[in-house]
């Protein structure tokens, strides 16, 4: 039982950490594929 709780907590912790990272990337308007993509910003709207 204790083993399951520890394993579950470790996996849950990793999942929360990566979810937070993925969410931060979306929130900060960064794309999800790392350094090769610049942050998204509005370009000047020109018609």
């Amino acid at each position, binding site marked *: 039982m204790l*083993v399951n709780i520890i*394993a579950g907590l470790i996996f849950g912790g990793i999942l929360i950490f990566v979810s937070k990272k993925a969410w931060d990337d979306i929130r900060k*308007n960064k794309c999800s*594929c790392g350094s090769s993509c*610049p942050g*998204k910003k509005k*370009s000047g709207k020109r018609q």
Partner: protein
Amino acid sequence: MKIALTGNPNSGKTTLFNAITGKAEVAGNWPGVTVEKKEADLKKKYNPKGINVRVVDLPGTYSFSPYTGEEAITRDFILGEEPDVIINIVDGANVSRSLFFTTQLLELGIPIIIALNKSDILSKRGDVVDKNALSKALNCKVVATTATSEDGLINLISEAVKLGKEKKPQIAPDFAGKDSEDSDRARQRFVDGIVEKCQVKKRDSSKITFSDKVDRVVAHKWLGLPIFFAIMWAVFSFSIEGLGGYLSGYFNDVVFGEIVPSVANGFLEGMGVNPLLQALIVDGAIGGVGAVVGFLPLIMVLFFCLSLLEDCGYMARVAVVMDRFFKKIGLSGKSIIPMIVGSGCAIPGVMATRTIEDVNERRMTTILTPFVPCGAKLPIIALFAAVFFPEKNWVGPSMYVIAITMIVIGGLLLKKIFVWENTSQFIIELPEYKIPSLKYAFLQMIDKAKSFIYKATTIILVCNTLVWFAQAYSWTLSPVEDQSLSILASIGSVIAPILIPLGFVGWQLSAAALTGFIAKENVVATFAVILVATSEESLHLPGGALAQFFTPVTAFAYLVFNLFTPPCFAAIGAMNSEMGSKKWLFRGLAFQFGVGYILAMIVTQVGTLIAYKTPAVGFVPAIVIAVAMAIYITTVIRKAESERHKIGVEA
């Protein structure tokens, strides 16, 4: 202290920025790679005293009169934020053209230092630029640099920091006709005078160079296109079916197919972990991520090859080759640059469309760029090629040929559907051919690999865990024995009927396609998670677990569907930013979905009739959809034509 790096496009600003900050921002051997400003601190090597120095890399521009969005970013930053020092990167191989912008910068009063970059090319040509004379003529320091080898950069940065501390205003150059109406001509005359005094050209500019000779073949009117296709075919074939495919096969079958799961299972079993939790970790998280990471060697080989091609100067020629064909469909050679960038990732590709000044051409390029298979789509191509078309090396490259064909057809359709007039002209500065740098290609490859792993271990991991949970549990949150009673099956079943005319039967296929809109790699990962629970067969082997859902024809159609329907959410976000209009975003997405859907339907229905002499599943609804679509397109085109006629615009 804020130091701005500025200069003409393709003068080496981003290469210099990466060298002095240790960043790995995308640099390219063609103009227009940087489309927005990037900031970073100086690397310790260039800042031994640890002073607070922020370096800003700005998009290239030829003058302070911007034509495009990214040029306006440079002007707005320099005029609005007033950096402490400007490092003006002057292309040593094109001094005359670069100094026009330099003289405009000198009039701002901000301390300026000139980095006479690409000194290696200069000395290779035997040309000489008298730095002292140039410095005297412009009233500012000039330092010779070669950003690629970092030569002269320590001297450049220490001089720049010194200038920033001194805060002495820059003296503006004075020349005849400065305030006249024709000040641009006067400025160019002033620049020409300086160049005449400071530069000694050993090479006769009328002499035909090695690059000119190569271009006569490579950028030839008729030979250019077949050469481009042959090169791309070789690169993709080598990456997807050759070395990259071979290494990925080993990673998928042995490393992530046997070693990693058995070690993880052994470890968790030994610990006495509950089988359900064990299945979540091994089959869900590790299995899904492993199915994607297994394709890492393929990604690395492909981007290594593409970086070599780009660094030697070939990719800039592709824009010239494509210009005459693109012009016919309302695009120009400028559109090819976002598409080449988009072969890495659709997001920077879509963002690169802001270098296009014509609004219609920009919209069209934004809609068509995601058709180019990006790095995220490669695992889907490689998986389906390995399972349904083993030993056949045409599947991977054919996706790129179809992409180019669809860009042309799509462009023609968009031009017919919307009342657009093509106004832009295409001018590009071709860099000289050079031996590509292995170091550069290696760094680009590592950067792509890091990005791929980052994505696999963040968004893909989260999605896989959710997919595993959704396929193992029902809506009442109780574990299910039969996967068809799961949450995922019920979601997939809602969408599944839409895919029947395409010959795709099964909630699994719609569920995988749906997760692909979050990140395209999810299609592979979702299959890995769903099928590992129900099948003993390997996912990646010919005739493996996927074979129960597809014939080779419908497998090819599924590939086409996932490649040509709208890209992932992040890329859709970039499209939204660049389109600057929700109406155009939705039009673009509808167009992309229509193209992907109809193309997959044609592949399935026509392909099945030809290959198996019998209609595929969903033949009748497919005919109805095809007729309805043909009527709709004809009506829209007629409406557009009459509107075009009314305002006198040619199609």
